[in-house]
């Protein structure tokens, strides 16, 4: 607790100067874009997902956390190419939404040996660890999983993450569970729900997502049914009888202008 307190105090103390420095921050270096493989999404993103930036992934509603996790790790795998992924999660999250499973990663085509898992007790240490990780240019991507409403995740924190990501070109994915989307400086924001598999098939096929791009700082928004190809490790349009899920029990996506 003492650690948390001291961090809090420190955080408070340097907030004004920090905001000042954020305002006068140097123009962000441009990092390349990475194609996701889904033609519609790639076109909307003007060639692909920006690396060295902050992206947010939300489940479209309660119960879609598995899908959101899968979608986030898919994006991260696209960005990281062959490099390592760091997944930062809190103890509570594993209890509530399930622990990240190595065999599950393997079945998504991601070599578990490429994934580092950091288990932390609270959001303060998670943010701190993310700050550390973003200085490590050897990392392919960082997935920061934060459940619940968090006061600490304000615009300043999000701006700080964006800057840190841009500095070394490490992409960070903020995976938020059980939380409302708040103002942030993220490059993109996705709302993800599962899409139903093509029925009456021997095999259900690859995982499908009803992904809505609800925020895009440098372009338009949109929503697509995207399929994660575990064999090629890329997204794509579903190629077997796509069935859009009935969204009767799901609220319509709020589309937010950038």
């Amino acid at each position: 607790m003492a650690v948390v307190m001291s961090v809090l105090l420190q955080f408070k103390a340097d907030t004004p100067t920090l905001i000042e420095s954020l305002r006068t921050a140097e123009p962000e270096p441009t990092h390349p874009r990475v194609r996701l493989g889904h033609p519609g999404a790639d076109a909307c993103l003007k060639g692909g997902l920006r690396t060295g930036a902050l992206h947010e992934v939300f489940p479209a509603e309660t119960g879609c956390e598995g899908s959101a996790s899968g979608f986030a790790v898919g994006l991260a795998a696209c960005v990281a190419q062959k490099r390592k992924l760091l997944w930062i999660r809190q103890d509570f999250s594993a209890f509530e939404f399930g622990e990240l499973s190595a065999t599950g990663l393997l079945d998504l085509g991601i070599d578990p040996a490429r994934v580092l898992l950091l288990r932390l007790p609270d959001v303060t240490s998670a943010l701190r660890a993310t700050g550390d990780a973003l200085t490590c240019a050897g990392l392919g991507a960082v997935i920061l999983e934060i459940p619940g409403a968090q006061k600490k995740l304000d615009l300043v924190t999000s701006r700080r993450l964006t800057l840190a990501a841009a500095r070394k070109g490490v992409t960070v994915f903020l995976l938020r569970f059980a939380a409302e989307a708040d103002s942030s400086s993220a490059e993109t924001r996705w709302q993800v729900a599962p899409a139903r598999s093509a029925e009456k098939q021997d095999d259900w096929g690859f995982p499908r997502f009803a992904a809505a791009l609800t925020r895009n700082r440098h372009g338009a928004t949109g929503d697509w049914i995207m399929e994660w190809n575990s064999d090629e490790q890329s997204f794509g349009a579903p190629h077997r009888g796509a069935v859009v899920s009935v969204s009767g029990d799901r609220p319509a996506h709020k589309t937010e202008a950038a």
Partner: protein
Amino acid sequence: MALWFPYLATDRLTKRKQPKSALVVAAKEANALRLSAVSPQAETLGLTRGMALADARAMVPEITVAMADEQADVRLLEKIATWCDRFTPFVAIDLPDVLLLDVTGVAHLFGGERGLLDALRNAFKKQKLAVRMALAGTAMAARALARECDGAIAAPGEESAMVATLPIDALLLDPNVTHAFRRAGLKTIGQVASRMRAELVGRFGYEVAATVDRALGRGEKPISPRLPLPDYMAEHRFAEPVTNQDVVSATLQKLAESLAHILEERGEGARALDAAFFRADGAVFRLGIETGRPTRDPKIVERLFREKLSSLADPLDPGFGFDLIRLSVPHAERIHPEAISFDASQQDDDEIGFLIDRLAARFGAARVLSFLANDTHIPEAAAVAAPAQHARESKTAWETVRNAGEAPRRPLRMFERPEPIEAVAEIPDGPPLRFRWRRALHEVTLAEGPERIAMEWWRHQPTMPTRDYFRVEDKSGRRFWLYRAGLYGRETAEPKWFVHGVFA
């Protein structure tokens, strides 16, 4: 070097409360209370160790009696040993009341051997602890000398001459043996040693003869230090105790630099480092860091200690200041020359290795994990998350039951404890039609299974029934991994359902 605390028990009690009269400590021995320790004052009154308490009371009616507390004595001795760590890392406890210090190559720091003895004696005097000490080539010779001639320093080669004149009690042999020697007219160690060795061994056994040899400096029995000896160490002594945190971290870096030189000469790197901060008032703080690969870069070491220091729940309290900081390498490993390369991916690995070390220093090694494949089909054991710092390459390759082009067979997120659900199935051993989990009802539209997973027979536990796993998809497309515990009819009449994980 040997330190003998002849009045350990009584000194401990006197320190707490000055007794009104001569203090003795009594312990129950063969159903009688006997004196196990006597204070110097009691000794002058003719009371000795081993005397029955009733006899002692008869001789001197006015005595203060305390009950023996051997554990407290040992604790005190351990405290003293910890304090002695500042002189040498090699401190051994020889129960009940002796400390053995290996001071090879240390004495010059204190102005020679005499200076070292004086420094120790002054310190113990301040603490009101009676001590007898001696320095000799072997531990046993030093112990014998400490008993009989306090402050003796045996020059190399002189041990046998000095020890030979000592009475045989100094050997601390079994009382029966000592008594037998006396009756044979052998009063000094020299006289015992002058007998034929074969006679000694024949009469008293090998151990007695060997002890005599060791006392005379003719042989050495390895003594085991309290703390494991580090492979390398460097230390800095301050003339004035320091309290400034900056000085402390600058010192750490300086020590790391001097260690780096030694390590470089040997072609080694540290896998673990310990820093010990000796406070002027005797308290000792120890901090340890570990690294994923052998390292000797002082900057990295300093950085890791900075992480560790900043993660402490209560910061390092310098009190009146530290007078000694020691950095030691308990575990060094060869740095393989091929590990140094200019390959880009190698550079990435180095950076990630450093990140892992930093995170481990801050949050603890058990929180920074990497996955290792495990050769089992039990789903929750198929992968283990092991501390990334110690993780080597998996011995087993990752195996998947999924074929190319198929849906994942294993969920992305798995619950450590499968959560019980209420499920309705058409037939007892079929897939569920609908199930309720966390108060939400899920209509199953697609189900695939069962995939039967039984406990491996060599670790069969009756409490672990066979599981039939189903992958199911509900109306809105969520995919779950459910299982039914127990075979219907054979293992259980009412199988229970659980959700074990969720798919992407």
